[in-house]
């Protein structure tokens, strides 16, 4: 027991090995030209204020004529879904013959402090849906929402059910009062009005501190110690740096939208209670009657499964599927298991519901 601790030779060998890796790793880090993400080609088809709508270019055969619009969260960047060519849910879905659009919310600055939740859902998201409908010639399209974007998509589907053919939610918070999630607990004690009135927009760095505190030792210590083990492998280092870029590439949050999201959802759980109002209209989840695929990650520390699962009981859909992916909030997009299982599962589910 504790052989390495008790034997200095072991210790020195480990030290030598670490230093050797460190020098090699420094060479690798210095030779990485640029952190490249989002390898899949796409074209800009619409923009409004800071929001942009992109259409992925696919050379393969289109197996479903109804396009999917992906609505990502505001708190991180959408390229998590297309991080690198061998870890790309987008590329995989394209390979399955799907037609994909994605919304890039951009980086809000102080000029966006008055942008509201209503603007995001009734204006930006709705305009994107209309653009995709018009371009595709489909009255109803498929909507895939991720994390907070899943909450937006759910709200949207309840307000505009006539425009959505199938709804897919991934790692989406719905019930904000489950105590499994630390963010749910902490938010109860925050004076959100004061935060928004003071800061105007909520800095991404502020949000990141909260996310890091969810697993402080794993995310701030062990992750980097783990890197040391593979510092001499260029591919591993490049992957690590890409992920690191994504984690800390965090847009600020438009103040008014943040205020309503935190107060109405995190603090008062109005979506589940049927009390949420967007643009003067009540959001009734019972109005979601289109087929629903609700995907959660069994090890999710940001959006606990208990927060996502209740959606299936709240919607009015008869055709609804609940799918638990074995992994975490991020692993659901980048793990090798995800590449092998998730994209085919989503694609199969959609194909079964795709009009021919």
């Amino acid at each position: 027991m504790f052989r390495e601790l008790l034997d200095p030779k072991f210790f020195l060998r480990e030290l030598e090995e670490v230093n050797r890796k460190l020098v090699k790793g420094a060479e690798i880090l210095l030779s990485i030209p640029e952190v490249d993400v989002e390898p899949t080609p796409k074209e800009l088809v619409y923009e409004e204020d800071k929001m942009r709508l992109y259409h992925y270019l696919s050379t393969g055969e289109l197996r479903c004529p109804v396009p999917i619009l992906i609505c990502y969260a505001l708190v991180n960047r959408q390229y998590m879904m297309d991080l690198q060519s061998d870890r790309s849910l987008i590329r995989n879905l394209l390979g399955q013959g799907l037609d994909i659009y994605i919304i890039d919310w951009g980086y809000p600055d102080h000029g966006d402090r008055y942008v509201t939740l209503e603007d995001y859902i009734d204006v930006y998201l709705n305009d994107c849906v209309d653009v995709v409908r018009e371009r595709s010639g489909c009255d109803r399209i498929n909507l895939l929402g991720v994390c907070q974007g899943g909450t937006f998509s759910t709200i949207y589907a309840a307000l505009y059910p006539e425009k959505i053919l199938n709804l897919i939610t991934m790692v989406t918070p719905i019930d904000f009062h489950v105590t499994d999630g630390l963010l749910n607990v902490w938010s109860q004690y925050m004076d959100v009005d004061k935060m928004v009135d003071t800061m105007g927009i909520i800095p991404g760095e502020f949000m990141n501190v909260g996310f890091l505190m969810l697993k402080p030792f794993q995310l701030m210590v062990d992750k980097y110690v783990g890197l040391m083990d593979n510092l001499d492998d260029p591919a591993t280092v490049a992957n690590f740096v890409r992920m690191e870029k994504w984690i800390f590439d965090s847009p600020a949050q438009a103040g008014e939208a943040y205020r309503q999201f935190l107060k109405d959802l995190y603090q008062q759980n109005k979506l589940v209670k049927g009390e949420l109002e967007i643009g003067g209209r009540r959001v009734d989840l019972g109005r979601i009657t289109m087929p629903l695929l609700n995907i959660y990650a069994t090890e999710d520390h940001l959006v606990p499964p208990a927060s996502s699962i209740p959606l299936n009981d709240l919607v009015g859909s008869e055709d609804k599927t609940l799918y638990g992916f074995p992994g975490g909030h991020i692993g659901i997009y980048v793990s090798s298991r995800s590449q092998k299982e998730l994209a085919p599962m989503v694609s199969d589910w959609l194909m079964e519901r795709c009009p021919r």
Partner: protein
Amino acid sequence: MAENGGGWPDMTEALKRWQELQAEAFRMWMEAWGNTLSGAFPGWRTPSARKGEKEKTAGEARSLYREWTEHVRELLTGFGAPVTGVGPETFLRVFRTAEVYNKLYSLWMEMYEDYRRAAGEEGEFDLEALHDLMEKWADRYRELVDQVFAPALPEPLQWVAQLYSGEMPLLAGGLTIHFWAPWAEFARSMSKKGLSLERPTPEVALEVYEEWRRAYKESFGRLLRMPAMGYYREAMEKYAKTMDSLNEFGIVLAEFYATLQGTGAKAMERLQERLASLREEGGEGLMSFRDLYRLWWQTNEDIYVDLFRTEEFSRLLGQLIDKAMDFRSNFRAYVEEASKELPFPNRSEMDHLYRTLDRLKREVRSLKKELRDSGIAAAGSVGEG
């Protein structure tokens, strides 16, 4: 390679530095774990003990956290700050703030000990002796406050620490008693409660800081809230409010750190328990330093997540953010007041502009929709016709 424009030090030098720090880190780990293990393995001797130094006790292993923060701070200093406001500098500020906590704590400990001696077991004291003690404290406080508060202030405002450490007229003459009375009350209250800080717990620390806050509010806090006069009245008043809110923030931050540090000690105890239970169970157990490291971080993770889950921690976090917001908004008001003659718009003026722009955008959007709808309606009526 010379230092580039971004502020990175020479890479070779940085690597050399890294290696030295690496060695130092391992030495520190060996020492700390040796101390930890001595609890579970009486035969264990730390490297320094083997060299004939005085053997350390298992209790000293609790200093690991402090040594670790020191080490990381040193390490980050060695690598410089590539971009102002982010990266290593951010961490440096965090660790510097941890020092503030430690210094405040030491200051209080000294004051408490002195007062306990002067006040006696029953908490009753002689006014003459108290006056002498106050004079002594005033000097020590002036010295310490400079060390404590100055590094915590934003760099452009570090001269502000002089407000306390310089020759304040209020600290002379009869007003001294008035000014220090809350601190006397603070010490008396602590003495009455018989709090022992030989082994501080988060609960005790929180109680101490609550009393500390009360004393502050009645002394320095009152000074800062005193109405200003003269030509610079507005700026002075905003400035005083800024400082007051910064101190309020500092007090809650100290509570926050007290909670985190108390938990760190608990984690170390839990780790010792786990090590002891592994030893009792026999078998393979931990086979390498990496196993031990894994057990260490996982134990810490569990303990801290348990803490973060508590209502007390959530409330404290909420208070911390609240006080930070107070400081931020007061600081902004002061900066805007002080810079109003400068040839650029301030945040409030820009916010006003943004608000106007936002209203106009909404109006245009609504008018466009009306036009579109009326067009559709008109087309519909033509079609019907």
